[in-house]
């Protein structure tokens, strides 16, 4: 095992951010988080290895963020795993360019499986 993989969590709910951080750190990931979706589009350097993006980001649609990130050359290769409370979002999320989708509430193992599958 070399350098730990970096996973970024973007969710406007601090509880989720915290719980997921605990889980991923326990699994050996380097975790960063943001409660504000806008900052994601401003990322200039140090991209994470995978982005966990909530669909609802305090007034911003996670799918729009995902679409923009995928359009920007710098972030277009960034694997994005979208998370939503609604399973119905799955299709639109994938259409928006997300690499995978996970509905809340999810099993921890499932989350880890999807991260491993998508992380570069």
């Amino acid at each position, binding site marked *: 095992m070399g350098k730990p993989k970096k996973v970024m969590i973007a969710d406007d709910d601090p509880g989720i951010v915290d719980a997921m951080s605990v889980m991923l750190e326990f699994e050996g990931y380097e975790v960063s988080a943001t409660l504000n979706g806008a900052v994601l589009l401003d990322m200039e350097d140090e991209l994470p290895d995978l982005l966990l993006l909530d669909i609802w980001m305090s007034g911003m649609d996670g799918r729009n963020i995902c679409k923009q990130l995928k359009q920007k050359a710098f972030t277009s290769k960034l694997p994005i795993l979208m998370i939503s409370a609604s399973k*119905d979002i799955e299709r639109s999320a994938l259409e928006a360019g997300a690499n995978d989708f996970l509905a809340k*509430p999810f099993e921890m193992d499932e989350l880890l499986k999807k991260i491993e599958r998508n992380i570069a």
Partner: protein
Amino acid sequence: MEINLPGGGHKDIFYNSLAPMLIIGTDAPAYTMLDVNNAYLSTTHTTREDLIGKSVFGVFPANPTDNISRNIERTIFSFEQAIINKAVHIMSNYRYDIPIPGTNDFEERYWTTSNTPVLDSNGAVMYFIHSPANVTEMYKLAEREKAGVAALKHQQEQLYATFMQAPVGIGIFKGPENIVDLINDPLCQLYGKTREELMGKPVFDVLLHTRGLGFEALLDNVRLTGKSFKGTGMAVPLVRNQRLENAYINFVYEPFRETDGSIAAVIVVATEVTELVIAKNQIEEAEARARLAVDAVGLGTFDLDLPTGEMITSKKFANIFGFEEPVPRNDYVAVFHPDDLIVRKLAHEQAIIAGNILYEARVIWKDASVHWVRVEGKVFYDAAGKAVRILGILLDITDQRKAKEEQRKLISLVDNSVDLVSILNMDGVNSYINEAGRNLLGFENEEQVTKIPVSALHAPEHFEQVEKEVIPMVMTTGKWAGTMMVRHLQTGEIFPVYNNCFRIDDPESGKPIAIGAVMRDLRPELAAKQALADSEQLLRNITTATPIALWMSDENGAVSYVNQTWLNWTGRTYEETLGGGWLEPIYQEDRQIAKEKFSSDSSAKVLFEVEFRLNHSDGTIHWCIANGQPQYRSDGSFSGYIGACVDITEQKQLQKQKDDFIGIASHELKTPVTSIKGYAQVLEKMLLKKGDVKEAMMMNRMDMQIRRLTSLIGDLLDVTKINSGKLQFNDAPFDFNGMVKDLIEDLRRTTEKHELAEDFNETGMVYGDKDRIGQVITNLVTNAIKYSPAAGKIIIHIALQNNEVTLCVQDYGIGIPGDKLEKVFEQFYRVSGEMQHTFPGLGLGLYISSEIIKRERGRIWVTSREGKGSTFCFALPLYVEGQQTNEN
């Protein structure tokens, strides 16, 4: 003087001759006796010496009876006659009594004496022989005979008188010509002729009309044979009082015998019995007429001998009883209607007391037809007062009975009619008004009906209508019908009636004889109409006031009524709304759905229900739910709907708010649940890493509970989506058996108690939302586990049938009552009753399952027996490439 008598011998003869002889000389008036024989002497008690030479009258003077018999005179006359005529002269039967010797008495003697002159050769009378014969005995005999003859003659005369005066006609017709020898007055009268016309004439020459009728032969027969003939009531044509008529006569022809026994005549004894015969004929005729009459009117007659019970009946009697010919009494009794035997029995018992019999009863003929008979009769009693006989008649009254029954029905109908029924005579007075009519118009009794003129039944201004309109109309056209005003006789109340008048014509002459009327009191009707109008107004007020639109439609689906509420909502007129007009204000998107739903429910005649949005006249749009209850006529035929339309805009809004709330709430719930779940799972892993297995297990159980919570939240969200139509499907073809196998594998891990048995047949691909269909199977299996706490086995069947994939979950649990089977797929349905609280859940699972299966074009159903278990099944169409399209 000396007389030479021839020979002495002669003298002896003379003297001894038994005939007394006296020879007397012709010397009148002395008439000297010349000789005498012994017989003479003996007869006259004299001696020869007393007589010879003496005058005869000297010796035999007139005796005391001579003044009567005058025999001296007669003797002298005889002597003179003999001498003069020189021929014997006989004196017959004269009386000359002879003195009885030794007494002064005389013996009565009668004599017949011959004086025979004896002539000399010159022819002169020399003497004559006087020879008296004592004929006393003969005379007396002759006298007695004479007396007898006289007596006989007297008797005959008396007989004749009797004969002539007899009250019967008597006549004697003599000889073959039947000459009237004798006829009395009654017979003359009978013949209508006088005695002079009849006497001495052949009777048939006088009674010309009786000729050739056989009477001659009858008379001949009697005369020739001696046998009498008796005729009774024979008709004899006679001309009497210048009129030819038939006299009826009882008569006897008796032979009239002569003394020698020969028959020369016939005695006719006749009595006229014309009156009797006529009377008798009249009786017979009357009887015959009566019999004819009896037969003509179909009367049967009977004569019942009470002591013997024998009954003589006429043929007609038998016919009425259904027999060809008269039969014994018991045979008649046998055909009585069994119910009427008691009537007959009572009538007979009563008859003995009352003296007559009268009853009506039914008799049953051989052909089973029933006939009514009336028996009427009179009882006859003997001297001891014992009833011995009943004579009577029998009448077939079947038709009468029927007619009477019909009439009775008609009368009953009229009597019991609640309407007035009357007959108005042409004189303006009613001859009949039924009870209802009398009550209606205030007649106190039937008598008043015929007394009170029709004009009194109306106010003058209203009677004018009767006079000028009604009666002329009835008389000319035969009828009149309409409303008129009448006046109550007692209260004076004037009220309207509907009167149906018709002219009654004489069936013979065709002339009007009366006016019939059927009159109905319009007050109740008017009151009812008013009540109806009031009630209608009330109903209208209520329906107008109600916030619910009400409607009716006919069997063809055309709306026939809406209330004011609907009109207020839509701002349209009543007329615009009827028929199919009600659809127009419906929100365009919903209009077709509403129309099709109504059309299909209407043709299926089932409860109609549809929701639609309605354009209100103020421009707002309101949600409505319309219901219609199918209506049926009394004959069971469908007549349309009666329904309501409720504004559910507010409910819709509330529903939406609720759905929105549940959606947001459950969405928001998911976030903390996700966090908790994350912490729990991390903690479990941490504890396992540390080796705290027990604690880790507890964390696992916590996670299980979170899973349940997640599932409940998921159900709430699903229902919300279903209700708002936002349930999404990600349909794609998938391998059905594979999916089920994986699912069952997972489910096995959730239960230790229950065995999930597989009964899988190969199926194929199904096109649908794999997760959603899996959700259904999970729901069915978890239900099966939940509701079979006692039984361990659950069988999952998969089969392919008719291009349908069928999956059934069979359990052996508590089952579902039959009346609840249909409800299990409804929202919030839960096991009811005592068990309710022992089975957790929101009651949404089957509802969601059925919605999912329906949305996936499948069917879902259940079969169950309470206490035995349930089998929940669904069927989905098999995927055939190129056929299905994603409808979502």
